[in-house]
């Protein structure tokens, strides 16, 4: 069992990543700490408590709840949470939340709301998987995460891409044209 709480040199520090809607219903959740959140009942109870404490406050913040450090950010009808070990440096957790939100924002073309997210559920699942592996922070660079979720180039507008990504898309497009030329 991964050690989330006692060992200061353990890399396991993300207990869960949760996305709730404006009524506190779960949209998507991935829990990594089997000790604290081993059952769905425990997870749902925590989500309810968490939502009641965060839904009335500012759009981004941090709090301690039941021995879990919780960072959250909201937009329109979605609430994004990173649940961390209290042992972890809060700035690691904050970087993780920022990465999650920014990556989702890019994928949904800044249209961060429930319907758009549900329509791209598979991509959001991949994003969370790229950010955190079984409780270990994998990546905190949103651009890198987006790049790794294998998006087709026509799904991303140019203004959202970094220079290297533009190059990547251009190269792909050039390859396609080259193939057609050969066939002709």
């Amino acid at each position, binding site marked *: 069992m991964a050690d989330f709480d006692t060992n200061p*040199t353990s890399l396991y520090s993300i207990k869960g990543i949760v996305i709730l809607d404006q009524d506190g219903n779960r949209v998507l959740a991935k829990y990594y700490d089997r000790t604290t959140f081993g059952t769905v009942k425990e997870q749902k109870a925590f989500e309810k408590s968490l939502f009641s404490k965060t839904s009335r406050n500012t759009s981004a913040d941090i*709090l301690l709840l039941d021995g879990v450090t919780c960072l959250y950010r909201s937009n329109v009808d979605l609430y994004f949470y990173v649940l961390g070990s209290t042992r972890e440096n809060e*700035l690691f957790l*904050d970087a993780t939340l920022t990465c999650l939100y920014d990556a989702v924002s890019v994928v949904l073309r800044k249209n961060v709301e429930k319907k758009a997210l549900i329509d791209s559920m598979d991509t959001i*699942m*991949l994003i969370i998987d790229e950010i955190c592996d079984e409780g*270990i922070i994998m990546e*905190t660079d949103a651009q890198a995460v987006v790049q*790794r979720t*294998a998006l087709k180039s026509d799904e991303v507008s140019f203004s959202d891409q970094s220079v290297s990504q533009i190059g990547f898309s251009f190269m792909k497009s050039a390859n396609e044209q080259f193939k057609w030329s050969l066939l002709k």
Partner: protein
Amino acid sequence: MKTNKKDEETGGNVYAHLDKTSVLQEARAFNETPINARKCCFILSKLIYIIQQGESIGRTEATEAFFGVTKLWQSKDVSLRRMVYLAVKELAEVSDDVIIVTSSLTKDMTGREDLYRAAAIRALCKITDTGMLQTIERYMKQAIVDRNSAISSSAIVSSIHLMRKSSEVVRRWANEVQEAVSSDNHMVQYHALALLYQIRANDRLAVNKLVQKFSKNALRSPYAVCYLIRIATRCLVDDDQPDSSVFTFIESCLRHKSEMVVYEAARAIVSLPQTTPSEIQPAITALQMCCTSPKAAVRFAAVRTLNKVAMAHPNAVMSCNVDLEKFITDPNRSIATLAITTLLKTGAESSVERLMQQIAGFVNEISDEFKIVVVDAIRSLCSRYPRKHTVMMPFLAKMLRSDGSYDYKKAIVETIIAIIEENPDAKVAGLAHLCEFIEDCEHDNLSTRVLHLLGREAPKTPNPSSYIRFIYNRVILESTKVRAAAVTALAKFGAQCVDLRPSIQVLLKRCLLDSDDEVRDRATFYLKMLTEAAEGLIHNFILDGLQVSPSGLERSILDYLRSGSYSSPFDLRVVPVTQQALSQPEKRVPQLVEEEEKPKAPKVEPYAAQLAAIPQFAALGPVFKSSTRIALTESIAEYTVHMIKHTFANAMVLQFECKNTMNDQLLLDVSVELEDPDGEWETGNTVQIDKLPYGEVHSAFSLLEFPDSGAISGSLGAILKFKVMDVDPTSGEPDSDDTYEQTYVLEEVDVNVSDSVQGVAKSSFGSAWEALGDDATREETFQLSTVENIPDAVKKISEILGLVPCERSDRVPEGKTQHTVFLSGVFRGGYDVLSKATVAVDPNDNSIAMNIIIKSNEPLVADLVISAVV
């Protein structure tokens, strides 16, 4: 129509009401040819979703779905392939035969598609075992040093997971991991450093070298620097002679350009034990800088760390008070509450008034749970500045009158009670506020709690009669439970204040007409006691309450009934006493306490059932007292023995917990032989251990009768005796039937006066002392050579006598050169023992002198107890 309604209810989330059966049905599309990538992607999302939601899928169903997923490898669609990896990881834990995808994953992890390789590595490592791991070892080593950061990080993080079950294989990749630490990518460097540390964690020297190396050659990744700080901190804590350059490195990180690193270094330094104020001050300054950050997470981290360090280094944190005061109005309530509690810990006495005014404005805006934290902080502030109770008490009283939950009110009541108990000067004001509170309290538990306190403390105030009105109002206005508590409180006034007794009797007579028998019975009982009983009985039955263990009482009554002999009445004195009265409420631990719970003292009662089950000792009656576990051997000895002394009315049973730490031996017929060189103590029945295999713990017992001479202390030699049968270390099977006898010398067994005394605190020591009379009083004066100050002397005498302090008289005010402590307990057989011990420091040579007076209701008992100190 129905579908539309459902969609509306869940806000259009098609995933919210997925049905497991339907999804598994849809998963059959995986078998179709050609593969519809978009459709399958959608179905995989739903399948993964229901698994993550905790839907339980049967093993057969999961395996069937898993096989379907494996067919999707035929598709070249990149998005679909990535979803397949995700599904493999989710299904792996609940499916059989997951190894069939090993070859596909291995092909992907070594193929040309970079987007496949990273995710394939992670999926493959999730399902691999040690044997399989060796077949892909070459690919893993290549991946760890791959130039693509996603691949490298995937391999390293997967290796960190693998360390938990296949660490011997992963350790062989140390060279590649070492190389990866040089990566330019921040995450790769961080992951690689962490894995390298874990590979070497058991080698102290290697870890130190690692810290030396990387603290000199600058790591590029702030995450890696933070991790290096954690390793370095661990070195400083674990090493007996830590290298000072390690601390220098951590301190230098306070000036790092990354905020994350600065904070990590600061919290590392303040968490170190035994730091000097000059060492800690730069870290405090760094935290102070973090307090000015616009980011809530940074402010939160800083104030939370300051909150922790404020307990250990209040003076150092004081310099941050100006910044912390601004946080009282921070929009983040967690930050505001942490700031307040930190200020309450570090505030100077002169700033208490201003601080309380600021808090008063803030407290109405926060929720009850945060208010409770503030209340707990106020409690610790009152402990530090007792004279400021005049500022704190009205504040708490005002909070008590405002709206709030039961838990909130309870926290305030408990804080006021704690202040009253700790600070005699605060008693009158505190009791007055609590009286006002119960006038309009809707929580019976809190009312009874306050009434209990009034009964105990108010009679000792200068004007006890002023409280009667508040108590009697409860008899008239409240529920049965509260009325009964009020009657008990009135009785305590009558017991302690002789001049009020006639008035109390009048009030109790009125209670005889109460509608509930709980109240009437109490009133009847107390009235009879107050009108007819002698002073001693009044104290025993009204003030001190029933101080027996519930299970002990139950056992004693059952023994009495089973004996079938009712010629003599049941005697309560044979019931084992406990240090805590039955009615004493549990004290809530303040929320501010973050330290790990200290190991609890061993419970006395569990042994009683064990002893009662031994026929040889059944006739001894109930256990009067059991001691703590005492080691008779060193912990690393071949045979370890711990002793527990169980005291009965006329005998002791010594329990020897024996453990065999020799894996090639089976011990037979294990017993402990006792020998008294003076010949006073004789061993009665013994119970031996027939078999003591390796690694197991069993108990042998010996009975010791108290000597006819009346002695209650002594020192006995002890020898462990047993037969050894040699066995095979791995199987535990005997090598042969041969045995040989062996002995093992143990530490001496000491029987002390304290073994015959159970500490029981008196709620009103003065009255009990007067009630005992002077017939059985003994006095001694002597010098103490083994203690250096008054608190230690007080503690020492309490231990030697087995008595406990009363009325918190063991608290020695600072700077005192003389102090008197009140001690009380019960001698076996049910005899009261009281003691006044006055400790003084001789100003000439700073030696400690003690005068001790012991009283009992039995002269012989007083003689025996005083013998502990002569």
